[in-house]
């Protein structure tokens, strides 16, 4: 049965979402529980699939049973096996987190909310595991549509933010579609494996150059790379409380993974214009790292602060692609996976504080660590990992990125890495100071929470995030050894 796992990981949340509305009509929580079951199953399968890939090599799955270039194909190797597992886990714990945000009044709204989250996760899972260019476009659109809805659910200002994000997102989607079209016109197939074989034979440099530029523009907009990041801060501040972690934590990262897949696996590294493109990308990444952190320092709204800091994180993942050495790539992949839990976790905290005290403004976070120990512990863990203090995953990913940068002689990126992690330190310790030390602002509970700090449905995801941040720290060598044989650097 295991060779069916790549397909089932994506199909199960899809079926869960499809049925949830009908099942909610039968009983209020039946739809929700079916979605939890489907997500838990898909997470279990993604772990089994990852284990299988590590043991006996990449798996591929041809939909409809036809030969490779003629049917859609899912190709799972260690790189996207890890990404799929991360997305499945984040999806599961975010679904748990959304329990607290339920509007029990209308049956439709309960079933619909979970259906949208399940579709969102199914879209990202598919995006990570697909090996067909056009198929990725459709998954990209499913994720985008669900994201517009999740942002729109965050109240009236969310509507405007969702509309603006929709316009920008559709521009990005269309650019990506045009890139796929040009690649199809040059190579004749849509399967990435087949496409790279044809491109490797050469003679198609100009088409690949134009397609690459379009894709960088499209995927750059989607992942809020520096020059195209305009939509992100407003979108993240008004998100629906539960799913903010998913959108900021995971959705912003999937396009970076797609760009990695195209640049390194499809176009190959000895493509004529590759050096110039990587230099241009390097400039974007460099400015992006600085810009995100500097803007984040001045913010008082915690969600906006996290939104700006996720612009920096996107530049970290692109850093691996720009530096080009396999070690740097492995490092940025590790950061990719770790940061989903760090950024996701921090958004959970922002949501939890808003849920309990109804405020997002940092200044009146006075001394809340007494009332919210788990949240403050997660904020501290996230802060340490963003700065790069050893036991957490942040340190190890910075280590590999720095090593890659030094090996290829690109010292500018090491300096940028250090400066931006210090800038991160500034605004994170500002938050820590406010939480642990500033005067008590006497915040009282907005909602009568029965016992303890937060409903269990919020505490579970947060503690999972804390555990994973430290766990990834210890497992980093296994992950790197898994991933390294697969990556070949630029001009190495």
């Amino acid at each position, binding site marked *: 049965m295991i060779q*069916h796992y790549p*397909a089932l990981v994506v199909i199960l949340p899809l079926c869960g979402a499809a*049925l949830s509305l009908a099942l909610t009509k039968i009983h209020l929580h039946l739809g929700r529980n079916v979605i939890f079951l489907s997500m838990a199953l898909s997470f279990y399968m993604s772990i089994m699939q990852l284990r299988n890939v590590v043991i006996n090599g990449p798996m591929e799955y041809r939909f409809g049973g036809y030969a490779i270039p003629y049917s859609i194909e899912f190709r799972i190797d260690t790189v996207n096996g890890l990404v799929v597992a991360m997305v499945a886990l984040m999806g599961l714990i975010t679904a748990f987190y959304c329990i607290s945000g339920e509007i029990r009044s209308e049956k439709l709204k309960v079933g619909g909310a979970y259906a949208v989250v399940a579709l969102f996760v199914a879209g990202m899972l598919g995006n990570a595991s697909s090996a067909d260019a056009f198929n990725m476009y459709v998954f990209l659109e499913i994720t985008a549509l669900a994201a517009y809805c999740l942002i*729109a659910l965050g109240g009236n200002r969310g509507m405007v933010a969702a509309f603006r994000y929709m316009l920008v997102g559709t521009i990005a989607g269309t650019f990506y579609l045009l890139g796929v079209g040009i690649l199809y016109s040059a*190579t004749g197939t849509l399967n990435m494996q087949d496409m790279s074989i044809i491109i490797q034979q050469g003679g198609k440099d100009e088409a690949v150059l134009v397609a690459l530029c379009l894709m960088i523009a499209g995927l750059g907009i989607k992942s809020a790379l520096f020059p195209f990041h305009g939509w992100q801060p407003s979108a993240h501040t008004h998100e629906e409380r539960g799913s903010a972690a998913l959108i900021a934590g995971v959705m912003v990262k999937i396009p970076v993974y797609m760009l990695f897949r195209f640049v390194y696996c499809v176009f190959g590294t000895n493509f004529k214009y590759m050096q110039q493109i990587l230099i241009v990308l390097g400039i974007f990444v460099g400015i992006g790292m600085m810009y995100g952190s500097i803007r984040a320092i001045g913010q008082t709204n915690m969600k906006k602060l996290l939104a700006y800091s996720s612009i920096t994180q996107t530049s970290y993942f692109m850093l691996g692609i720009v530096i080009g050495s396999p070690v740097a790539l492995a490092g940025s992949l590790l950061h990719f996976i770790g940061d989903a839990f760090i950024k996701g976790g921090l958004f959970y905290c922002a949501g939890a504080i808003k849920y309990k005290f109804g405020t997002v403004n940092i200044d009146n976070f006075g001394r809340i660590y007494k009332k919210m120990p788990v949240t403050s512990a997660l904020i501290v863990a996230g802060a340490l990992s963003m700065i790069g203090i050893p036991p957490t995953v942040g340190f190890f990913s910075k280590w590999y990125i720095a090593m890659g940068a030094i090996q290829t002689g690109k010292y500018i990126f090491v300096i940028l890495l250090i400066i931006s992690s210090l800038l991160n330190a500034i605004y994170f310790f500002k938050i820590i100071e406010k939480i642990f030390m500033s005067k008590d602002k006497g915040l009282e509970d907005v909602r009568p929470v029965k016992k303890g700090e937060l409903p269990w449905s919020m505490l579970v995801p947060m503690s999972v995030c804390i555990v994973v941040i430290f766990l990834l720290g210890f497992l980093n060598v296994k992950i790197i050894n898994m991933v390294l044989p697969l990556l070949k650097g630029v001009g190495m």
Partner: protein
Amino acid sequence: MMRKVIGIIVIIVGLGYVFMSFDFLPVIGDSTAPAHTHVSDYYIENALRDTHSPNLVTAVLADYRGFDTLLETTVMFSAGVCAVMILGSKSHIRNRFLVPKKILKGKPEPGVSAYKTVNKDVMVTLIAIMILLYAIYVLLHGEVGPGGGFQAGALMALSYIVSMMIAPDTRPLFSLSKANAAALAGIGVFIYAFTGLLTVFNGGMFLEYGRLPFPVSNEYLHTIGIMLIEVGVTIGVMATIITILKAIIERVRFDDDRD
């Protein structure tokens, strides 16, 4: 104003330069271009043998790249759910259209004044039936002629819209509340996904119609497979269109509102 004109001129000239300097696209219409020689001619030559459907587009759509169409239907479904979630909250807006319960209670017999516009109601029901019949034809005839699930679904929704617009106060052939329509859309998508799962349980790859469990020869299996997913697509498309329609209508205040 000047700024706009300059902007447009810059775009025209810029794009012209790009297209002149890079010849990355094949000359239009020449059949030796790489786009036509690699994958698509395999489809043309083997479509009849593999999928037994003369309509190449349906063959590619439903069989070779069947997974894409499943995702297409999910896009439709997610658009429907999103529209409902966004517009769904305010239920206190006066329900403009007669909900079936009200109609069934006081059914106007022929001769009562409410029944006065006989011809409009009769005409609407006739048209609706005709549209529905044509929709079924398009659905079943999909793989031969240029048809398929999406058009059939749109047509079914059309019959609902026609009866709702022309005679709002008569009972349409079938009326769905917003929640039911959304649920139906979900079921449509599930039918599609379930046919895929059927083939998986039966030992084949996802959506490999050769492995459907029905006791029929291979040739017909593909046709049944395509038929099943077309039914799923139709239900999904119809229900989504109706959901979005009802969500928007309940929310928007028309100028000629009586209240």
